[in-house]
């Protein structure tokens, strides 16, 4: 059963096709990766799914519901949540507050309630702070709730960002290079963590990743983009043996490419 279906999604910037006719289907509770060289259109695709861009052509649907061109906040309400390549936390808010903002879609306190602090609002606030603390514990940041986000170390900021994304109780979580800037051991931890997300919380995960080691080890299915076009799709093994993919990476003369496209799983 597919949770996210994209059909013929095309996005242009000026005359440039950032995405052309992308088809994609993500099954429920899958870990699905999108890879490709820089500027291939991966993040653009994320932005189309989350509603920041409206594709010129094509349809994106979530659980059978058309979400093309919906405003980002509505998309989030429908159960999509994301993280960013360059961490974008609310730097001057504490870790708990960051998560509380993430919980926004299912909080109900309104203007009047906030002022008079009726019992329901107080109760809700108390429960949500507790839930935030649980989430912090889940991502391994126990006891760090009152620290300003900007004072957290890099790895912790990554995990906090994921916790914030989880706070909206998403069905589909989009992770944009969650291991960027991490050392091997941290990366390994993150891979485990992503698996846990899927297994324990039963969330579908759509991943953009540069480190092939990571991609190949956790993805169930992979789509490869190049210059806005889908050049391949398949299981990690299929992708590793796809001549087009190898060419896309090698053809660019990237020394980094070959070394990483080694089967590891």
């Amino acid at each position, binding site marked *: 059963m597919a949770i996210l279906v994209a059909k013929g999604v095309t996005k242009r910037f000026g005359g440039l096709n950032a995405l052309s006719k992308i088809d994609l289907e993500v099954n429920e509770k899958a870990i699905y990766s999108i890879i490709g060289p820089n500027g291939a259109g991966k993040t653009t695709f994320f932005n189309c799914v*989350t509603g920041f861009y409206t594709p010129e052509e094509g349809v994106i649907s979530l659980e059978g519901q058309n979400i093309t061109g919906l405003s*980002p906040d509505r998309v989030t309400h429908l159960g999509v949540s994301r993280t960013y390549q360059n961490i*974008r936390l609310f730097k*001057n808010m504490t870790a708990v*507050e960051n998560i509380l903002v993430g919980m*926004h879609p299912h909080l109900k306190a309104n203007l009047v309630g*906030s*002022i008079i602090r009726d019992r329901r609002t107080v109760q809700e606030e108390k429960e949500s702070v507790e839930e935030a603390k649980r989430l912090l514990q889940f991502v391994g940041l126990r006891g760090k709730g009152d620290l300003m986000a900007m004072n*957290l170390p890099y790895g912790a900021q990554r995990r906090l960002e994921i916790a914030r994304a989880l706070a*909206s109780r998403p069905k589909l979580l989009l992770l944009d290079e969650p291991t960027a800037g991490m050392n091997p051991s941290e990366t390994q931890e993150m891979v485990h963590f992503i698996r846990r997300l899927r297994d324990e919380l039963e969330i579908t995960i759509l991943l953009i990743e540069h480190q092939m080691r990571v991609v190949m080890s956790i993805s169930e299915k992979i789509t490869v983009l190049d210059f806005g076009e889908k050049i391949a799709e398949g299981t990690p093994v299929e992708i590793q043996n796809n001549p087009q993919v190898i060419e896309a990476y090698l053809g660019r003369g990237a020394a980094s490419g070959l070394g990483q496209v080694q089967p590891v799983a």
Partner: protein
Amino acid sequence: MQSQNTSLWKPAIQSGLIAGGVAVLLSLVGMVATFNQRFIISGVFSMGQVIFLAPMLLMSYFFLRKTMALSSQKIVLYGLLIGVMGGLVLVLLVLLGTNFNLQAMFINSSSKLYDILTFNQPLAPGLMILLALSAVMGVLASGSFLIPPRISAAVIQGITWVLLVGLLRDLIITVTSRWGPLAGPVKSLFAVSGLKPLGAIFLFALISGLYYWRNGKPVSPAQKPTQTKDRSLLFWAKWAGLIILLLLLPPILGIFFSDILDTVFMYILMGIGLNIVVGFAGLLDLGYVAFFAIGAYTMGVLTSPELNADPMTYWQALPFAMIACVVAGLILGLPVLKMRGDYLAIVTLGFGEIVRLLALSDWLRPWFGGSQGIQLIAQPVIGNMVLNTQQELYYLFLLGVGIVAFIAWRLRDSRMGRTWMAIREDEDVAIAMGINHVAYKLMAFATGALFSGIAGTIFAAKLQSVYPHSMNFLVSINVLCLIIIGGMGSIPGVFVGSLVLMGSPELLREFAEYRYLVYGALLVVMMLTRPEGLWPDARRKLELHEEELEAEAHVLAEAETSAMKSAK
């Protein structure tokens, strides 16, 4: 911070010249001559003299403070140098001004000014006195580094108080004249202008003596209550004391101070509102006066018999005024909230102007009174009492401020406040978190508009009239400046900012000519030295000292990695 080895002669001379330049500027803009009419100590020295000598003193003080750890000889020498250089610049001005007709260009370059600068002496001895006094000023500043800090602090306190009390003579006499038996003794300290010499000596001795004595007292260890119950009791006692004090202020201070407090509170009302818009939600609104105008005019239109066959009372009209402001906030908000910061600023500024022009226009004159304004506006009635003096209206302002501050405080610490802060921090991410940014910005806008409108209604009732000329751009700027001076996003900051920016100029209204000059300089200096404001929000303070904190975060991160390593 310069090291001791490098020669400081050049920077010292530079500082002296800058000090002299400032003194010349203050003389030529007319401050020296104007303030010279005000004696600090009657017959001895005037505020004007303070103004042209203070630059040397202050420059010398700050120069020496920056270059710590000098030998005492050098401290005196540098102080002297700065004083002399500053004095020389002033001497140059006097020589130029007395020999050439500078007045064709600089209107304040009058013989009066040069008489003041030469202490009413003939030119040559006058200049010698000027130079000598400037030098003394420089050395005085160095003195504060040489004598024990406890004494110098006491002396500085004493001088500051003498200056303040001398300058505020009229006000102090006016206020204390209400205090029965105290009036006579207080009055006896003062001359017709400023303090009597004896009074000044007495005051100086009293203040610095007290200060010296206080500083000498060891801090008693029993000052901190250990039990939480005691602490909360203390907390409530403090609040209760404050409230009682606030309630008692009008009868204690009399009508004039009540009027100033009314102005201060009116700006606090607006400041809290704008703080929600700018401080919480990060929307730069330069046309905030529009909502103030809408509040005041709605009140005027509904309650004035001039425009209305069946005028309402204040309380009847209040809900309509509030609704009008909220609606106006929504109508302005909707089209402009999608715009980025600076566009938002200019469009709101335009909105403020549009509202003023509509109120002024001949076109809408039958409804809004045009340039003749609206008169005979109703004043609030409680029971049988009409609140019509500034002392009575103070309570209305106090009530308004109390309610509004409470609401703002509750909002800040709620889901709303968090959401606004998230929008301010990173709008895109906030949207991705499922926040409908337009709705929340609108709420901020409407709340801000509402508070400003309430201030407008009380303003209209206080004056019983409104004129379009009161609704100018300066009001918006004043409110914006006061929340930033107080500390953006900080609710107590609004109170402090309003007291400083709106209250203190009212005390010295007669020097209103220089009000905006000082105001402008204050804004610049304030932002350069204390950008987080006088009473900052804890968070904002962090934001403005990010660099320091980044270093701190780095240390934290290292500690963490090492901790993680050891855990494994």
